[in-house]
Each structure stands twice: as structure tokens, then as C-alpha cells.
């Protein structure tokens, strides 16, 4: 039933798909981080309407499944004259979704900074830009590392949904191999194992990163 030289035969195909998964996850994570920071800044500086706008955005993405934005962009963009490749559409959806969660993570970290620090910064004459750059931002980023790690893992798993729009990442590859060879178990168990490796690797990376930058 289980063909044990499966990986030797199809190893290369898997690694190709693995590459796609990893690169998409990396790019989408970077994009989501930038977008999350932008949303966070908008909340800080946009006054009452800025904060409300970001809140509405976050609530919308928090309470809807990520397949909806994926379909929206994939099916919708060609209709408005932007026939982008599937992987870009999927990646954009992941950025928009995870950016919402990341902005909430940053907000939590910001609130964890003791208010006295802002008073202290004022008392030594630091202006708003300097306070942000030297006091707020470093602390927000470092406090956020564990939760950001969590979020990146979730994003990594969500790349599997891009198989629904025919992006050849790991899950799509498993489906193709199953159809070609009929060996469902092997195909999917290998893919599951590869995801576990990616997820564990990411978790280790963030744990090490946190330990390195902490000022304990």
C-alpha cells in the first residue's frame, strides 16, 4: 500500500512546490508586516476617524474566512482590467488579511509600553518623531515578535488555500500527484510532513530571534 521510495521518485517535484510555498509565504509575510505597520500608524495618527476606519477594516477581515478575499481578487480583478497571475492575487489577499491581524498585534504591544515612558521622553525634550523612532518603535517591534511568529505560521498554512486558485504550491502539488498516480496517502503524508518542517522551522526562527533581541 505505501510505496516507500515515493520521495526518491517525486522529491524534485515536491521541492519545487515547497519553494513556491516558502517564497509566497515569505513575500506575503513581508507585505503583511508593512501593511500592518501602515494600519497601526494610521490608527495612531489618524485621529478618531483613522482609528475607526482601521477598526472597521480589522473587524471585517477578522470575521470573514480568507477564501473570500482570495476569490474576490482572483475572480474580480480581471473584471476591472487587472488580470494578475493567480499567485499575486492570492498573495495580495493574504497580505490584506494578515495585515489586519498584525496591526492588532502591534496595537497590543504599544499599549504594553508604560505611559511614564512618554512623559519621560517629553521631559528630556524629545519631539514626536524622535519619541516614535527611538522609544516607541523599538519596543513595539520587540514585544511583538512572539505574536508575529504565530501570525506568520498561520499565514504559512493559509498558502495551502491558494491551491483553490490553481497556484502550484505544496497542496496543489499533492493533489496533482494523487491524480497522476492514485497514491493519495503517500502524496499527502509527505506534504503534511513538509508543512510540519516549515512550521517548526519558522517557530524556531522566531524563538531565536526573540531571545537575541530581548534586552533581558
Amino acid at each position: 500500500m505505501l510505496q516507500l521510495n515515493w520521495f526518491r521518485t517525486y522529491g524534485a517535484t515536491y521541492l519545487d512546490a515547497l519553494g513556491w510555498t516558502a517564497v509566497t509565504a515569505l513575500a506575503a509575510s513581508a507585505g503583511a508586516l508593512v501593511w500592518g505597520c501602515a494600519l497601526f500608524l494610521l490608527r495612531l495618527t489618524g485621529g478618531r476617524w483613522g482609528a475607526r476606519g482601521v477598526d472597521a477594516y480589522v473587524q471585517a477581515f477578522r470575521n470573514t474566512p480568507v477564501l473570500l478575499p482570495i476569490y474576490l481578487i482572483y475572480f474580480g480583478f480581471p473584471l476591472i482590467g487587472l488580470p494578475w497571475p493567480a499567485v499575486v492575487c492570492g498573495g495580495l489577499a493574504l497580505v490584506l488579511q494578515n495585515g489586519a491581524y498584525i496591526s492588532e498585534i502591534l496595537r497590543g504591544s504599544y499599549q504594553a509600553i508604560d505611559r511614564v515612558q512618554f512623559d519621560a521622553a517629553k521631559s528630556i525634550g524629545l519631539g514626536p518623531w524622535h519619541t516614535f523612532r527611538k522609544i516607541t518603535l523599538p519596543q513595539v517591534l520587540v514585544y511583538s515578535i512572539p505574536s508575529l511568529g504565530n501570525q506568520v505560521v498561520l499565514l504559512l498554512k493559509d498558502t495551502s488555500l491558494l491551491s483553490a486558485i490553481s497556484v502550484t504550491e505544496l497542496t496543489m502539488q499533492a493533489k496533482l500527484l494523487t491524480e497522476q498516480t492514485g497514491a493519495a496517502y503517500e502524496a499527502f503524508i509527505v506534504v503534511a510532513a513538509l508543512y510540519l518542517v516549515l512550521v517548526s522551522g519558522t517557530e524556531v526562527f522566531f524563538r531565536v530571534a526573540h531571545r537575541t533581541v530581548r534586552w533581558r
Partner: protein
Amino acid sequence: MNTPTLTLLLQAAGVSLLLALAAIAAGTVAAALLTALAFSRLRPLRFFYRLYVYVVRGTPLLVLALLIFYALPALDLRAGPYLAGVLVLTVYVAALFAEVFRGGVLAIPRPQWESAKSLGVPPGPLLRKIVGPLVLRYALPPYVNVCVMTVKATSVLSIISVWELTLASREIIERTLAVFTVLSVAGVLYFIMCLGIDRIGRRLERRLALRGFAGERV
């Protein structure tokens, strides 16, 4: 949007909700058993718990779904897509609920264990009258969170041909190309379901809190 389409979407939303509720019910029961394993005195059982949670949380739901979807016929088990879908969701959600319950148990402050022990309370009533209510109080917010995640997770089942809101939307879009309207309506429906669960959860929290759990003043 015409009425037949809207009705179709509403029906599909109902299916999503039912799938979610079934998985939540089954998952909670399964999770209670799993949590018992997590605190068992036997090392293999504890290891099984950790392995289960590690695998289920480290693999995408879709991959788990496809694994079970393809595995069932191979084991000669004929099950309709709905049953398979609920099974997949239950396996997934049980891991999440188990971690919530485990967290709830760990959140009980040590002095409370020690008081119970010094009063000599036997294990049965201990669980029912002391541990149970405290875990409920500490675990309720994350529990509600997982419930909301379950509703969103039903959308993944669309990829293994379970007919629910996301699949219904996709079918309509592929037929009519009314991408924005259909997905907006679907989004609103999910939003209402998720927010609804969240609100119910918060009201429950408030009611429990009034009874003076976990040290609040009554």
C-alpha cells in the same frame, strides 16, 4: 441581486452554521477527553496528546481535509461529503479546544488547588464543583474565539466539495460573474454569524462573572 440567488446564499449560510455547530459539539467532547490525556499520569498518553496537537496545528486544515477525504474510501468507509466534512472539522477543532481547556486548567491559581487539597475534597466533586467552573470561567473567551474560527474554517471544506456558503458563492460566480455582489453578501453573512457568536459569548461571560467567579466582587 435577485431573490433566488439570495435565498440560495442564505441556505448555504445555514449549512455552514450547522456544520460549524456539529463540529463544535463533537469537538468539545473530543477535546475534554484529550485534555484528560494531557494531564494523565501516564507518559505515553501525555505524549500522544502533544503529538496530536503538534500535527493538527502544524498542518493546514486543507491538507488534513484532503488526507481524510482520500483516506476514507480507501478504508472502505462510504461517507457523504457532509459527514466527512464534520469529521475533518472535529479532528481539527478538537485540538484547538483541547489547548483552550488545558490553558484554562493551567490558569487556575495555585492557591486554589492547595485550598481544595487541604480541605480533602475527593476527585469527583473536585472536578465538578471546583475545577469545572473555574476552567469554564478562564477558558470562555478563548473558547468563543475557537468557535468563531470554526465557522470560518467551514469555508475550507468547500475545496473538498462540501456545499456550503463559500462553495455556493464560487458556483454562482463561475456561472454569472457577479463577483463583487455575491462575495459581499457572503462576507456579510459570515460576518453576522461570527459576530453573533462573539456577542453570545460575551453575554455568557457577563452572566458567569456576576456569580462571583474568580474573585470578582458580587
